[in-house]
């Protein structure tokens, strides 16, 4: 069983109760269709488990498969530097089929972010190191594709639908009471 080698820290993008009994970490790629599907599943899980679940997202762009995956990840990190990671995260996944450089700028504009500043950050790869750090930590932890989930530090190898994940989270939440 593969284990998360990079512990969740305050450098992570995290949603929900920091003291939650269950932490779900996702390694994802904004251009991967399975990640777009998983986005809806995660939202359902968050609605169901509330304070019992913390969610962390880390970048794992498969940039040789997906043309805009790396730029999308860097755009999310750019938004994060302005306190807007999660709104951008949602927008990227919701707009996945039409991702392009101009769409990234359009999404930034929609969040009142400076598009010229984004363009500069993308051209200079300002956030590449952050994205790459997520990626290499993921490789070391046994991320084998996207999305890969970890529940309380253990890789989740089950079916990635709502029912299966909810059952696994419920079991963990009970055992940590």
């Amino acid at each position, binding site marked *: 069983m593969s284990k998360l080698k990079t512990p969740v820290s305050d450098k992570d993008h995290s949603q929900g109760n920091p003291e939650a009994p269950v932490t779900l970490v996702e390694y994802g790629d904004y251009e991967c269709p399975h990640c777009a599907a998983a986005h809806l599943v995660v939202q359902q899980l968050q609605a169901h488990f509330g304070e019992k679940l913390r969610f962390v997202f880390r970048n794992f762009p498969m*940039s040789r498969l997906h043309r805009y995956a790396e730029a999308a990840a860097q755009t999310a990190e750019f938004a994060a530097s302005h306190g807007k990671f999660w709104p951008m995260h949602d927008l990227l996944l919701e707009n996945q089929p039409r991702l392009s450089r101009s769409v990234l700028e359009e999404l930034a504009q929609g969040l009142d972010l400076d598009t010229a500043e984004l363009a500069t950050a993308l051209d200079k790869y300002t956030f590449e190191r952050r994205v790459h750090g997520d*990626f290499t930590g993921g*490789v070391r932890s046994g991320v084998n594709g996207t999305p890969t989930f970890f529940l309380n530090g253990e890789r989740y190898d089950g079916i990635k639908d709502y029912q299966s994940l909810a059952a696994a989270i419920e079991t963990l939440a009970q055992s940590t009471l």
Partner: protein
Amino acid sequence: MSALLPPGTPAPDFQLPVSPNEKITLSELRGNPVILAFYPADWSPVCGDQLALYNEIHSEFEAHGAKLFGISVDGAYCHVAYAENRKFQFPLLADFEPKGAVSKAYGAYFEPAGFSDRALYVIDKDGIIRWSYLSPIGVNPGAEGILEALEALPK
């Protein structure tokens, strides 16, 4: 089910097509670590695909001077089409004729289905197996085992 060859075993030599017109001989690769990734078939689903992951992190293998080869029983022309489609940066070897002979020599042939198991080998620069791992057919083994094995090789 056959067992994989354990660490310490000299890697059985082989010669396999690396393209429709070229063959590669394992023993001629001495001096560099070699990673052999046996896998069931070309054209498996994309995002969760093991070889797609290896393609993303190929530079990490290269940093160890290691050469990665995918091996399946698909023919050389099938490999060409698959590698072009997926933009692989590493070669695929065709264990096609006699079918699965190299996979069998490495204990990595799944008889009931007639294709290679999902098995990984790390072979050192002197041709000795240093690490081997058999994954359930349906489970993508990822890369951390390979990287740990490469790091553990004597310099």
